[in-house]
């Protein structure tokens, strides 16, 4: 079963906080993100197991750091994940495991041609695979684990957010 996007959002938030404050301890993460302790520990354990984060103790507290050697994604996938709309489409498909064109259309208030354009980019970039089911095209994520890790570790820059908003404004017309 693929990862839950809600979990991905939480993991992304944890990852970004630990990147910003290397050596942050468990209670501080919990206080800043407002997650339940059990949920937070579950995510931190997962991210340590997946070598996204590392931890060490200073005697009585466990401190968290981002591992430098997170697996390096290929440039094409990274470039695609820099666009918010593509990340959201991929997260929807990760949640559903498989999604039809209609499922994706229903979720995003964008024109058919814009959705097709984005899905074509994701399939050509080898992030999504397609299969035919009757007259419908069904989309799935080719490598859910790698893609989920990419979404967690991706850091949005100021330029990325400006470009996202600019492209959304013009493509949404």
């Amino acid at each position, binding site marked *: 079963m693929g990862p839950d996007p809600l979990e991905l959002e939480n993991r992304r938030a944890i990852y970004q906080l630990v990147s910003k404050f290397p050596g942050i301890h468990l209670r501080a993460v919990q206080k800043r993100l407002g997650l339940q302790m059990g949920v937070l520990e579950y995510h931190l354990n997962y991210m340590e197991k997946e070598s996204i984060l590392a931890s060490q103790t200073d005697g009585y507290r466990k401190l968290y750091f981002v591992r430098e050697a997170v697996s390096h994604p290929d440039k094409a996938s990274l470039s695609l994940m820099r666009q918010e709309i593509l990340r959201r489409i991929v997260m929807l498909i990760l949640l559903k495991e498989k999604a039809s064109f209609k499922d994706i259309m229903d979720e995003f208030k964008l*024109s058919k041609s814009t959705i097709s354009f984005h899905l074509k980019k994701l399939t050509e970039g080898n992030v999504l695979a397609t299969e035919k089911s009757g007259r419908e095209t069904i989309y799935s994520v080719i490598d859910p684990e790698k893609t989920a890790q990419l979404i967690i570790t991706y850091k949005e820059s100021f330029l990325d957010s400006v470009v996202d908003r600019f492209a959304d404004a*013009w493509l949404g017309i």
Partner: protein
Amino acid sequence: MDTVEVFLRVALMGFSLLLFATSVISYARVRHTRLLLISGAFALFFVKGLVLTMAIWMPWLDILFFASVYVIAIDFLILITIYFGIAKR
């Protein structure tokens, strides 16, 4: 030329350059033709702003450019480019 006019001419050029750069980067990432057309419109805006700014020091440009059909042609081209940018599916 008073200070406000100089400020407005330079601001027009600076802001159109910023929007042109943003649209080009957006096109480079998204590769949608609509963004290419919008980049073209902002490029034309930038050209107009550049001439306006250069005319601060070269007043003859004002006479040559803004009292001619060129400025109407540029405005028309900007509108046409934006129209096709919006109409493009």
